[in-house]
């Protein structure tokens, strides 16, 4: 049975735990996979072994024990277990595979699990840093699905830029750097819409961290709030793609 163990060092253990609890974020971290049905946690994983490509569709369940979080991926011919144990400043990740052609898979498994851990690290790193936000007056969030309430608050913001920007897949962090520069001490509201209106996004950025996001793509609405599903923030932002008219607002008045 192929087993691999890894340790991720953490600057924000609380944030990491929030990331682990998001099934959608977890599914996005699995290498060589495609999500078949996000609502049911169905994912197809391909293991490439020499000239073979072994694939299986897995259903995902999360088990929470006293010390660890365990994702069980049950396929038709194989099973994967991913155990995530938060420690003081680190996260221990143990990955195990049982079932079809496990001997063959073992040769490829270490590389695959390393990539899984790297992807998890990226998601954890993209999360807002809880302590940093709390020290600066608490976390500010907006439910963008209640647009009227947000618009009533827009008078606290100053529109700084309004311009067309092409955003590539997974490049939103770079776009954010371009839009707000090195300013990590302010609150920004950033919105974007494509010319045909089929895709639009709204993001709240606090001290360089994204705390609220909404993305509508062809009538499919996805949203995430830091307090509820923080790991989904990065996942959703990664999917923003296209040429958008982007408005950048900076908070200029008190709460």
């Amino acid at each position, binding site marked *: 049975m192929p087993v691999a163990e890894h340790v991720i060092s953490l600057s924000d253990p609380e944030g990491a735990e929030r990331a682990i609890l998001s099934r959608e974020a977890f599914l996005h971290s699995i290498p060589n996979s495609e999500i078949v049905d996000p609502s049911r946690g169905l994912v197809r994983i391909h293991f490439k072994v020499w000239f073979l490509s072994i694939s299986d569709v897995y259903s995902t369940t999360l088990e929470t024990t006293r010390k660890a979080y365990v994702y069980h991926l049950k396929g038709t011919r194989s099973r994967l277990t991913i155990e995530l144990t938060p420690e003081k400043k680190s996260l221990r990740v143990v990955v195990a595979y049982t079932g079809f052609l496990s001997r063959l898979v073992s040769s490829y498994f270490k590389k695959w699990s390393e990539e899984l851990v790297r992807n998890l690290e990226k998601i954890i790193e993209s999360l807002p840093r809880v302590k940093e936000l709390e020290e600066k007056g608490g976390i500010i969030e907006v439910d963008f699905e209640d647009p009227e309430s947000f618009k009533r608050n827009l008078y606290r913001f100053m529109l*700084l830029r309004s311009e067309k920007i092409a955003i590539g897949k997974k490049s939103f962090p770079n776009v954010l750097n371009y839009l707000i520069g090195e300013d990590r001490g302010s609150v920004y509201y950033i919105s974007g819409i494509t010319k045909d*209106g089929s895709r639009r996004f709204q993001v709240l950025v606090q001290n360089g961290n994204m705390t609220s996001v909404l993305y509508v793509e062809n009538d499919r609405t996805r949203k995430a709030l830091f307090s509820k599903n923080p790991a989904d923030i990065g996942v959703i932002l990664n999917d923003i793609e296209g040429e958008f*008219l982007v408005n950048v607002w900076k908070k200029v008045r008190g709460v």
Partner: protein
Amino acid sequence: MPIKKIYTEAYPLYDDGEHKVFWLGIEEADEEHGILTNQYLIVDGNEGAVLDPGGYFIFERVARNVLSQIPQVNIKYILYSHQDPDVIGTINLWYEEAPMAKIAISNLWIRFLPHLGVSESSRIVPIPDKGDVFKLGNSKIIAVPEHYLHSPGNFGFYDEKSGILFSGDIGAAAFPKDEWYLFVEDFEEHATYMEAFHKRYMSSTKALRAWVRYVKKLNPKMIAPQHGAIFEGENARKFLDWLESLEVGVDVFEKEFWGD
């Protein structure tokens, strides 16, 4: 006629299939203190222009009625007659609501826009003093100078296809409590609701008469102000004649304000 929550939907003023003009409803927002505001939408083909969308208290109704007629990305212009809060107060919200729109206002007021939460210039179209022409679909909207009537940087907007002149504060009326109508029927009675406003708010008789001469050449079929009721046909002509005979502003109040 009591108006509370009655006329909250868009109402067509003109429709030839391709070119449409809507009045965007009305509501008695307590914050408007009885001086109710009119907002308008012009649509030609798949492009739209919103005129004087107004202040915060009415934003939700105006936005809903605009978006019931045209997708937000097809709004090409937001046209402002002048800088009063009940005209321009929600400019920041319209940047979001109409993300592809150019925002047009007199060149005089551009430097004041940061006070309304807008500190970017790429979407602003400063209207020069002599006016401008805005192309909307296959139609044209002419920015007609209305300076000193009442604002020193003021424009009306003449929609060539429909023949409707959107006159800003010229033609404004303050209705008595519990009275309201959309179209002027009895001009003489309606003039009594307009007189005090025009005498005090319009600053120059000379400017007013120059504007009337200009507008008579345009010969609008309809004059639609930002407050009060709409003048149609014969009443539009009566309104222009009435203005021509009116003394306003400093010409009326010079002695009262400054003595001899």
